[in-house]
């Protein structure tokens, strides 16, 4: 790669300060263009027909009447898409999720799609498509789906990871096990053992912008796609593979993205819109309704988790076991495996074992949601640790500090940690004034920790210097949280020029090499690294041009504070050349000045956080209000603290919503009963206090600035932090999230009746 990735401690001019985002003005004036805001000449309106059944055989689809409706230009069903059966099963699953093939696997599963001249015609055409269903038995609960008597959803699924290999298909896609040591020995050493079962309900990422795209396919196979996505390069590759297009002939442009949180890493309507366009030979714009977003896209797993932990009287945790059942919707996923990797990751537990069961049910295909799978496992583990702490008589924070993972601790998934920040966050929590604030009647305080990986991945960045010395930074990672500003800051830092001389843009797929998704908290980490290297690349060109202008050897030129300086004997008196001066002459010194970098930005650090939450519980209604909340997280290095805080606050709020009220509610018919923001209750402004934040900086050794991803960890602790706070306010331990008023009141009643 030729660039040194290692962390170097230094003083920054730009990085670490606060600058306004370049996309700000467009976003506050309504000019910013999102997925639904683009138009193309002659565009059609695409709409999708969805299954009203949880599980049904599609006996027949008759589109004849709809096709005859004036204004209808194309209709597609799975028959119009390639049959990927027998090939890559993962790809086949994605395609089958986009359009059902023979069976509707969940309420809201896409069955057919239509493109018509306008909204009204498209809606009418959907009603004219006749689908004959034969209802099949369904299962939506993860525990029920694992039982012997459950209807088996896919006869091709034989549980992976169990010996001997099962001879019968089941809804259990895989068993995963992680951990080390001997838990039996560990439990034998324990003075106190706590065992509990927890349940968490399914939640949705809840981005405010519904999925939207504008697709246009030409008869020669060239195509364009404008889409709201977390990764347009990946969307390009996936759509091309699904539809048999040439990758380079499909140009994908990412719109401004109105929230993703993992939910816009997966394709749904995009291949369908492309197929409709190909058939109609006209551009097709497809925008989902909110009900479609809830019924058809994105949710996270609902879970059922058993945790058993043992500790000595001094607080040392001697053994820990988690058995975690995660449903992945109608197609198998790796969600329980991720839970196994994260459940005990904050702690140094000599004997630990995590077993995960990945299960399929008749619900939408689960998609990544901010630190996928970790919040539920943390809810179970962090609740249990509080119970243990109480039992041995140690404060919850000291209990955690006693067992905290450090550099050198073996992670539950195997390797040994490098420098990590969990202990720092816990100590900061312990010292935080929030911990000493007085609680009022019916109030309680809870603390919880959380962990999530960061990932790096493929990244490609261009940096072009204009003749006036201003800089275009061209990025391929979608900006979901303000990364354009952070990247421009990094370029300014490296080049030694003011922030406002750098303009960062996100390029389409024809303008840069491949970039992975903005997922896994990788945006600022990976594009930041590529930006540093691209800037350093440009600096070497700048130095060479300066040398040429001066007529001195290149090796005598250094770059400092945005200018070239000649060093060495004989030319020490030459006046420095600024970036502007060199850029102005670039036409005569060899042409445009640019830097470029492509990198596999591996070596992302670990993200750890500890949260403090105060709740007030109305003992007569079971309603919990968040009265104070503090997030402490290790960011490695905060490039722009405003946006780091924004990630902390946003993630915490999503976790609070999950803890209190957000859940998918399914009826006995297996249909989703609350596919809208009215009854899928995300936190509103009046539900919350200000969310305090504290950024810690334990440098990541494998990033030049020490950056760690910060996007995801903040959603991990809140479920448990809220649960622990409720327990301290009421004396009642909640084991079922969300801890909605009816559940809390029932638990209070049960305790009163028992005692």
């Amino acid at each position: 790669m030729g660039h040194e990735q290692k962390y170097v401690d230094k003083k920054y001019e730009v990085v670490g300060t606060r600058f306004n985002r370049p996309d700000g003005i467009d976003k506050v004036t309504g000019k910013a263009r999102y997925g639904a805001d683009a138009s193309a000449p002659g565009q059609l309106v695409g709409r999708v027909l969805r299954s009203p059944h949880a599980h049904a055989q599609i006996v027949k689809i008759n589109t004849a009447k709809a096709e005859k409706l004036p204004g209808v230009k194309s209709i597609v069903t799975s028959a119009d898409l390639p049959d990927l059966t027998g090939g890559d099963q993962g790809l086949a699953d994605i395609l089958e999720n986009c359009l059902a093939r023979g069976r509707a696997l969940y309420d809201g599963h896409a069955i057919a799609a239509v493109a018509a001249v306008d909204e009204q015609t498209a809606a009418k055409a959907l009603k004219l498509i006749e689908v004959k269903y034969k209802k099949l038995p369904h299962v939506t609960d993860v525990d029920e789906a694992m039982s012997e008597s459950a209807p088996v959803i896919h006869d091709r699924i034989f549980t992976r990871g169990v010996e001997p290999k099962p001879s019968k298909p089941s809804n259990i896609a895989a068993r995963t096990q992680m951990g080390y040591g001997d838990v039996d020995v560990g439990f034998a050493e324990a003075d106190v053992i706590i065992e509990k079962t927890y349940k968490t309900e399914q939640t949705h990422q809840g981005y405010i912008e519904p999925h939207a795209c504008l697709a246009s396919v030409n008869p020669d196979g060239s195509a364009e796609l404008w889409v709201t996505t977390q990764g347009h390069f990946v969307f390009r590759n996936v759509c091309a593979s699904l539809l048999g297009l040439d990758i380079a002939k499909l140009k994908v442009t990412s719109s401004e993205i109105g929230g993703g949180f993992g939910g816009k890493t997966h394709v749904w309507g995009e291949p369908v819109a492309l197929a409709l366009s190909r058939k109609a030979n006209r551009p097709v714009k497809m925008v989902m309704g909110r009900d479609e977003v809830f019924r058809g896209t994105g949710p996270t797993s609902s879970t059922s988790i058993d945790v058993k932990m043992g500790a000595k009287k001094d607080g040392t945790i001697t053994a820990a076991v988690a058995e975690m059942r995660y449903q992945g919707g109608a197609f198998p996923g790796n969600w329980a495996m991720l839970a196994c990797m994260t459940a005990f990751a904050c702690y140094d537990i000599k004997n630990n074992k995590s077993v995960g069961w990945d299960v399929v049910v008749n619900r939408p295909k689960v998609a990544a949601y901010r630190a996928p799978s970790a919040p539920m496992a943390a809810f179970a583990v962090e609740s249990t640790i509080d119970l243990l702490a109480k039992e041995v008589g140690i404060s919850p924070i000291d209990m955690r500090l006693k067992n905290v993972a450090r550099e050198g601790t073996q992670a539950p998934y195997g390797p040994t940690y490098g420098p990590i920040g969990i202990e720092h966050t816990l100590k900061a929590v312990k010292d935080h004034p929030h911990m000493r604030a007085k609680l009022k009647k019916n109030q309680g305080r809870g603390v919880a920790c959380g962990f999530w990986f960061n990932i790096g991945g493929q990244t490609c960045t261009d940096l072009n210097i204009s003749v006036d010395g201003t800089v275009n930074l061209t990025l391929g990672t979608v900006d979901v949280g303000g990364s354009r500003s952070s990247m421009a800051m990094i370029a300014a830092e490296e080049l030694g020029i003011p922030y406002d001389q750098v303009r960062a843009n996100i390029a389409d797929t024809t303008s840069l090499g491949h970039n992975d998704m903005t997922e896994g908290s990788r945006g600022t980490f990976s594009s930041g690294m590529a930006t540093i290297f691209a800037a350093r690349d440009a600096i070497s060109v700048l130095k060479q041009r300066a040398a040429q202008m001066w007529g001195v050897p290149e090796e005598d030129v250094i770059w400092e504070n945005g200018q070239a300086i000649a060093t060495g004997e004989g030319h020490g008196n030459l006046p420095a050349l600024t970036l502007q001066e060199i850029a102005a002459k670039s036409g005569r010194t060899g042409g445009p000045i640019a830097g470029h970098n492509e990198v596999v930005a591996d070596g992302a650090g670990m993200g750890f956080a500890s949260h403090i939450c105060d709740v007030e519980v109305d003992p007569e209604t079971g309603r919990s209000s968040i009265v104070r909340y503090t997030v402490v997280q290790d960011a490695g290095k905060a490039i722009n603290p405003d946006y780091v805080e924004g990630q902390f606050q946003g993630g915490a709020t999503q976790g609070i919503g999950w803890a209190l009220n957000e859940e998918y509610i399914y009826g006995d018919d297996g249909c989703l009963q609350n596919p809208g923001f009215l009854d899928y209750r995300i936190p509103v402004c009046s539900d919350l206090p200000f969310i305090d934040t504290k950024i810690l900086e334990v440098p990541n050794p494998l990033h030049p600035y020490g950056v760690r991803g910060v996007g995801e960890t903040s959603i991990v602790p809140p479920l448990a932090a809220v649960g622990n706070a409720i327990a301290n306010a009421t004396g009642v331990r909640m084991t079922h999230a969300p801890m909605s008023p009816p559940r809390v009141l029932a638990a209070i009643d049960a305790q009163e009746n028992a005692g």
Partner: protein
Amino acid sequence: MSNATLVSTTVNGDPVQFACPTDESLMTALRNRVGLTGVKEGCGTGDCGACSVTLDGSLVCSCLVLGVEAEGRKVTTVEGLSENGELHVLQQKFIDHAALQCGICTPGFLVAAKALLDRNPNPNETEIRYALAGNLCRCTGYDKIVHAVQDAAKDMRKNNNRSKKRS
């Protein structure tokens, strides 16, 4: 298909005419026929506030208004907040306070916050939070939004006092 009707209205101070089916929402008409895509659709059912506009000065979800109802009325959208080429104080404060991340909810928040400050120039935190409860944001946890509105209110009060003194 529904009958289309010609609607004459005023949008952001300008006379505007558009023809739309009678059952089309004002939100869709503003987006697709007037070209004001700053009016965002998050739900179409009045639950998220992204399509907030004022109608004769009253804050509404434009998804819950028919396009034809705008006949003879005055509509203000986010595109109408800046005047004389300058950002409205609220717009500037949203940028300064990093009160937006993805930005899809921002137009609705700005319209709603302006309606609040027009009505109540000195709201306390609770009043701000309840006034903005009809606007969903999934990125920020509302923290920086409330700070931005508080700061904007302060500046607007200062400016008002100054212009009062001058006149």
